[in-house]
């Protein structure tokens, strides 16, 4: 019998029941909750007279709507305020732990979960948010769900699911200096496309993935959904286990030893087979910049904006033409010649301490270019912010002319007051360059934290390898 993949193991361990039609009832260990996708689920639960199945499985925080400026005055936008207050009230009424807007542990749900040890290896983790794939970095089966499924998890602690296909993306070798986890995952998406992982759970493997820090692995898994895969995951190793030692919600003492022992089996067997297997050479990956309105529209920073006329597929060509019009770019333009208006360093992709360190290293002793209207750094959580301040990163950013903000999703999706104005062009460490994502008419280029900081200093894209 062929060996099992990591995904097979996680799936099998969580099957409550196999249905005749091929679906399974899958048990959910951790349910993370935020204000945007939960109110209708709480309401549905109440209307049906149902209870929360296992209250302590749920952990909530407000992240999408929260202001990143002074919070002492609350949320100015009444609609946003009501949504956050609704989460507060629902969690209070049902006894669900919530890190509210003024809690020092508040932050982006995908930063907060692992930081607290609320996400652990071997768990199933869901959240009404597509970037839940982030948590796969620890040998976890983690994926985003819609609001109906949020309600289903509240009520039953389970989901009815059909198993996805096994897919592996290996990145072998050593990446060059200046090439980060973000560049690796953008290169993967550039290679397989935004639907490349559709219907699959992707395991990221290979020596370049193993060499990444835990935070780097989170960046890679975070963008699995941008490759079309609901879940991305990486095998557990010593780094994974050590990451969780001593975290508030992680086990301790004898239970810790048992858990750590069990976690070491969370890897694909050597003879496991994958329906799709992709290989990338790490040495060939250069710092990446997206030029279009889909994460697959990406090139290396030393490249040029591609020409749609060289694209054979008519639908893809049409998409490229649309994207160039929206982005106001011409084929053949060197990425380095693209001038920027705003810089955003943050989001569940790149707002952890290592991301801020990488950006600060580039910004140290420099000044944001006079042509940049706004360069902002938004830490992923209150604890990340505190750590950065302890290390003096806030001073480096402020001295360089960056704004140092309070934690939240911020301008990744612009649900709060942070946004691009029509026509503005932004170098962003977030995950989606869709039309209007950062504000109606705004133009987003996805890059790594170091590339974003370098672009802030220069006023246009630069190759971090040349700094």
């Amino acid at each position: 019998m062929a060996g099992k993949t990591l995904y097979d193991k996680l799936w099998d361990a969580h099957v409550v029941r196999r249905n005749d039609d091929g679906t399974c009832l899958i048990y959910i260990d951790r349910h993370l909750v935020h204000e945007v996708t939960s109110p209708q689920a709480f309401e549905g639960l109440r209307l049906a007279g149902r209870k929360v199945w296992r209250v302590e499985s749920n952990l909530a925080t407000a992240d999408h709507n929260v202001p990143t400026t002074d919070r002492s005055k609350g949320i100015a936008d009444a609609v946003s305020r009501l949504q956050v207050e609704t989460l507060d009230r629902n969690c209070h009424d049902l006894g669900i732990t919530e890190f509210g807007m003024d809690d020092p542990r508040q932050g982006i749900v995908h930063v907060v979960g692992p930081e607290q040890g609320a996400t652990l290896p071997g768990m199933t983790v869901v959240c009404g948010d597509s970037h839940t794939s982030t948590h796969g970095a620890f040998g976890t089966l983690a994926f985003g769900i819609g609001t109906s499924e949020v309600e289903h998890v509240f009520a039953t602690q389970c989901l009815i699911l059909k198993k996805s296909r096994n897919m592996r993306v290996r990145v072998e070798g050593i990446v060059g200096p200046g090439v980060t986890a973000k560049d690796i995952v953008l290169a993967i998406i550039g290679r397989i496309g935004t639907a490349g992982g559709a219907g699959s759970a992707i395991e990221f493997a290979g020596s370049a993935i193993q060499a990444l820090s835990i935070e780097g692995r989170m960046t890679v898994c975070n963008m699995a959904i941008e490759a079309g895969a609901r879940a991305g995951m990486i095998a557990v190793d010593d780094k994974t286990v050590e990451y969780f030692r001593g975290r508030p919600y992680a086990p301790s003492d004898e239970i810790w030893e048992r858990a750590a022992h069990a976690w070491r089996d969370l890897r694909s067997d050597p003879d496991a087979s994958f329906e799709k297997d992709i290989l990338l050479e790490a040495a060939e990956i250069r710092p990446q910049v997206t030029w279009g309105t889909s994460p697959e529209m990406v090139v290396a920073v030393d490249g040029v904006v591609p020409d749609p006329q060289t694209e054979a597929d008519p639908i893809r060509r049409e998409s490229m033409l649309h994207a160039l019009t929206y982005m106001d770019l011409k084929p053949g333009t060197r990425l380095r010649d693209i001038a920027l208006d705003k810089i955003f360093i943050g989001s569940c992709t790149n707002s952890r301490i290592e991301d801020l360190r990488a950006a600060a290293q580039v910004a140290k002793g420099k000044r944001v270019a006079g042509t940049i209207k706004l360069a902002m750094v938004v830490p992923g959580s209150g604890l990340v912010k505190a750590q950065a301040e302890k290390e003096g990163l806030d001073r480096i950013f402020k001295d360089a002319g960056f704004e140092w903000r309070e934690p939240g999703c911020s301008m990744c999706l612009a649900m709060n007051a942070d946004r691009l104005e029509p026509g503005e062009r932004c170098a962003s460490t977030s995950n989606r360059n869709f039309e209007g994502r950062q504000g109606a008419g705004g133009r987003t280029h996805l890059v790594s934290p170091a590339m974003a900081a370098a672009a802030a200093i220069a006023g246009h894209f630069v190759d971090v390898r040349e700094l």
Partner: protein
Amino acid sequence: MKKFEKLTGLVVPIDRANVDTDAIIPKQYLKSIKRSGFGPNLFDDWRYLDRGEPGMDHGQRRINPDFVLNQPRYRGAQVLLARDNFGCGSSREHAPWALDDYGIRAIIAPSYADIFFNNCFKNGLLPIVLDRATVDRLFRETETTPGYRLAIDLAAQTVTTPGGVEFRFEIDAFRKHCLANGLDDIGLTLQHIGEIEAYEVRRRREAPWLFGRS
């Protein structure tokens, strides 16, 4: 949940690949704590020339006459014809809510993003997968035939053109059953309470760390 049995509906073509959920319903409308009322903001950035915010009178806004949804011939459409990877991006169920609220009952595309696809079924919306060549043909026929309607039969798993050409589509048995009967799958899962409880007892013993506090 609304049942889906049969439908003969006017078809509106959205001729772009990778239509994302930010395009289907922009983020400012996600601040709502309700499940309804998203229809006027379906494809908001493409549909209107001015910037929309929650609470506006959308009937007073400047519409984009070039956008397909605003063309009189597609008014009242119930079937949305789309390209590959429709609904990619975020998990927002507001996307199917907006389609439903607008009056769309079924979508036809060569492929969908996984989360969106799943969310449709929770809302009585039928996402049909047909191969690329067939979808190409339907796009051509829709664009050249005013008043083009397709007949969809869930039980028979068929899409039939006005000319009587029938295409069969595949659908998971469980999803078909729920959609055809308008079933709430929470109710179905709760029929297995005993199994869920037994699973928990076993797992608490095997892996107690999974049941730590939060």
